């Protein structure tokens, strides 16, 4: 059975989507989505433990040996991301029903769950595959479903945000397609392992250099890396809360993972970071991202928008980590991928609860939240501390690892930028806390707020709680991140 797990954890959510549509019932669709994500999470955990003990798993779809068919390869790196993505999907499933009932037309709820299943399928497919073109196909499944998930936001701005995301995302996807095509032109193969074997002979080939460029730019658009981030803030801020939780925690992370896979598993670190000046470029871009994202977040007056802009900044940390291309840098990147996914997922969950209780997420409306909804406020506070990187949070663990990696690489300017951006995070988190804690609520707000539904609170505390546990008891996560980095670099841990 374990032999088929690599395909099952993608195929089960895939099977779930048409079932949701066929049954046409919101309740049944939720159960299907829940079961599919739990099944995916379970298989991901089993896979991760199997990979940790027995080494990488290979699976040939259709029993066509690679490079003739499509192969799945699970190693410590993608097992890490698989567990993360499917875990967030479970949290979203717990969170979703009440939030969706409040935000989505009841006639469309079953379609909405089908879209969530599809988005999960796409993301897991990107992570698990060992075939370059297969990445593109699943990238488009996840992208198309996320456009739809975002477009159903309550305000009309959601439509515009989804459209802009669609245009940018399609350009990004097509850039990836061009890059894969150029690599195919000079090798004749699409299998990642086969490509990796043939490419070193071609270092210096101009077609290959351009392929690296196109894939990098395409995935940078999908990951919203700083100058190409324009679609992200309004897309995540306008999305319905449940989609916001899921996408903010997984979407950009998977794109970054895909870049890591292309850089280390296909093109090879020797080409991307040795032959081409990508390392310096990535460090500059990452530094700019963490400063600009955090700075702009300070000027927003909507909770979800602050969180979305903060994501732009936080992606900068991950990018800086991978730009170092060292064992430490990569483990810091993996740590921050997981830490930020948990924290930002938790914070978007909190923002969704705020939206449900107050009917808005505007920052002035938060006044008095600390008294009217202390639990929500505490979650917001803890998540915010994680964003800043205060000790005993997961954010601290990953930032500490990043700073250590930067010290090792003698990148003092970047370290200064990390500290500055943390200060900026203090400013925007502080603003939220200040309003919610100290400012008097307007008299109108005393009218009865709906209470927090228990499943939503559970999901919120689940995400925030796991991020706190990971901050206090950091060893397992660090170990997994180290193993993931080692798997990418090809050095046995």
């Amino acid at each position, binding site marked *: 059975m374990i032999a*088929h797990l690599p*395909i099952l954890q993608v*195929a089960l959510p*895939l*099977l779930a*989507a*048409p*079932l949701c*549509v*066929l049954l*046409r019932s919101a309740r049944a669709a939720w159960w299907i989505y829940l079961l599919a994500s739990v099944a995916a999470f379970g298989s991901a955990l089993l896979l991760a433990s199997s990979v940790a003990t027995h080494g990488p798993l290979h*699976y*040939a*779809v*259709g*029993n*066509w040996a690679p*490079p*003739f*068919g*499509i192969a799945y390869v699970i190693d410590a790196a993608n097992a890490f991301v698989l567990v993360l993505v499917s875990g967030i999907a479970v949290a979203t499933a717990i969170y979703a029903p009440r939030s969706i009932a409040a935000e989505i*037309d009841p*006639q*469309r709820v079953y*379609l*909405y769950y*089908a*879209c969530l299943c*599809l988005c999960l*399928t796409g993301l897991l*497919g990107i992570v698990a595959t060992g075939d370059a*073109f*297969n990445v593109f*196909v*699943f990238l*488009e*499944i996840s992208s*198309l*479903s996320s456009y*739809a998930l975002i*477009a*159903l936001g309550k305000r009309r701005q959601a439509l515009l945000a989804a459209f802009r995301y669609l245009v940018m995302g399609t350009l990004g996807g097509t850039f990836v397609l*061009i890059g894969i095509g*150029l690599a*195919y*032109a*000079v*090798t*004749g*193969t699409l299998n990642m392992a086969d490509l990796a074997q*043939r490419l070193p002979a071609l270092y210096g*080939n*101009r*077609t*290959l*250099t*351009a*392929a690296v*460029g*196109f894939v990098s730019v395409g995935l940078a658009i999908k990951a919203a890396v700083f100058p190409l981030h324009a679609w992200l803030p309004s897309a995540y801020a306008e999305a319905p809360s449940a989609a916001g939780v899921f996408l903010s925690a997984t979407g950009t992370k998977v794109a970054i993972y895909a870049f890591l896979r292309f850089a280390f598993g296909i093109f090879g670190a020797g080409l991307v970071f040795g032959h081409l000046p990508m390392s310096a470029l990535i460090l500059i871009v990452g530094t700019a991202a963490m400063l600009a994202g955090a700075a702009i977040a300070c000027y927003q007056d909507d909770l979800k928008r602050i969180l979305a802009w903060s994501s732009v900044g936080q992606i900068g940390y991950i990018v800086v980590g991978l730009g170092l291309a060292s064992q430490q840098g990569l483990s810091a990147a993996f740590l921050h991928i997981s830490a930020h996914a948990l924290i930002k997922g938790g914070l978007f969950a909190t923002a969704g609860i705020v939206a449900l209780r107050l009917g808005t997420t505007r920052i002035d409306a938060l006044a008095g939240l600390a008294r009217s909804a202390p639990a929500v406020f505490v979650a917001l506070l803890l998540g915010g501390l994680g964003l800043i990187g205060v000790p005993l949070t997961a954010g601290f663990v990953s930032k500490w690892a990043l700073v250590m990696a930067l010290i090792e690489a003698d990148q003092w300017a970047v370290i200064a930028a990390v500290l500055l951006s943390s200060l900026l995070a203090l400013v925007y988190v502080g603003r939220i806390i200040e309003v919610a804690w100290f400012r008097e609520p307007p008299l109108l707000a005393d009218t009865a707020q709906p209470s927090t539904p228990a499943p939503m609170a559970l999901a919120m505390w689940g995400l925030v709680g796991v991020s706190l546990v990971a901050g206090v008891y950091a060893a397992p996560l660090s170990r997994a991140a180290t193993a993931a980095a080692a798997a990418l670099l090809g050095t046995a841990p």
Partner: protein
Amino acid sequence: MNGFVWIDIVLFTILAATAVGLARTRQLFAAAMLSGLFSLTSACIFVLQDAVDVAFTEAAVGAGMTTVLFLGTLALTRSREKVTPPRRSIPAALIAIFTGGVLIYASTDMPPFAAADTPVQQHPLTQRFLDDSMTEIGVPNVVTSVLASYRGYDTLGETVVVFTAAIAVLMLLGRGRPATSAEPKPREALPQPIQHDQRVLRVVSKLMLPFILLFALYVQFHGDYGPGGGFQAGVIFASGLILYALVFGLDAARAAVSPAALRRMVPLGVLIYAGVGFATLLLGGAFLDYNVLDAHDPAHGQHLGILLVELGVGITVTAAMLMLFYSFAARGVGR
């Protein structure tokens, strides 16, 4: 230099002229038609480069379906474009030139066009697909073998993409117009039953319709031996029904193929495809390993598997395309 070069030059000139024309015109209707022409011309180029299946699909999808969807949208919005301000056009031009420059730079190290010793032609994949597929799978159209068997998983993904688009559009446009609309008066929908004397149109459409549907079935089941397969067949089948809707009105079409039936067919096709995958798992093979479908004769198993998955693709694509059309067409009726 042979005759093909001249055809190439003519076609490329038409393509470039079309592209420039659609970039410059501010009439969106003209731009949509030119984009259809662009797809059709590129389909001709694909034929010249031996990609008959691709040409078929591009003609049916790019020139046919996409244009129908553009026209449906234009009928609902009826807008004309404004002049592009230079603050947008200059950075756009710079980005386009830079991207093109990188690609030209890349092309200088690309293998010569149509050479026999390129990495693509030299890779072991070539021999496997072109020589061994006849014994392994036994389908003369190698594109079908690769599409449905060697890379059958990609094609499953592709079917899921169509499914995703269908349910996404259903979610966005599904239930008529919302009450709060910026534009109070409902626009005329695209397929109004034509009021005036349309005997010619009706008679000819009625005459043609069975043949269009028959042709779709031929394309569906002849895909093993010639160009064609589930995608092309699905689009042709849908376009036959779209013709019916255009001539006889949306209500007549919905009476023939109800939206409720479509809503079941779209997921059904995906289920058939994925179901084949799970069936092979249960029979002890790998996911989508058609060899296990027939314990005695693997090649027969491959045939059966390809037939089933192409059927799944055909069902989903037909229903999805028709559903897209219904969604756009019904939007203007204002029910």
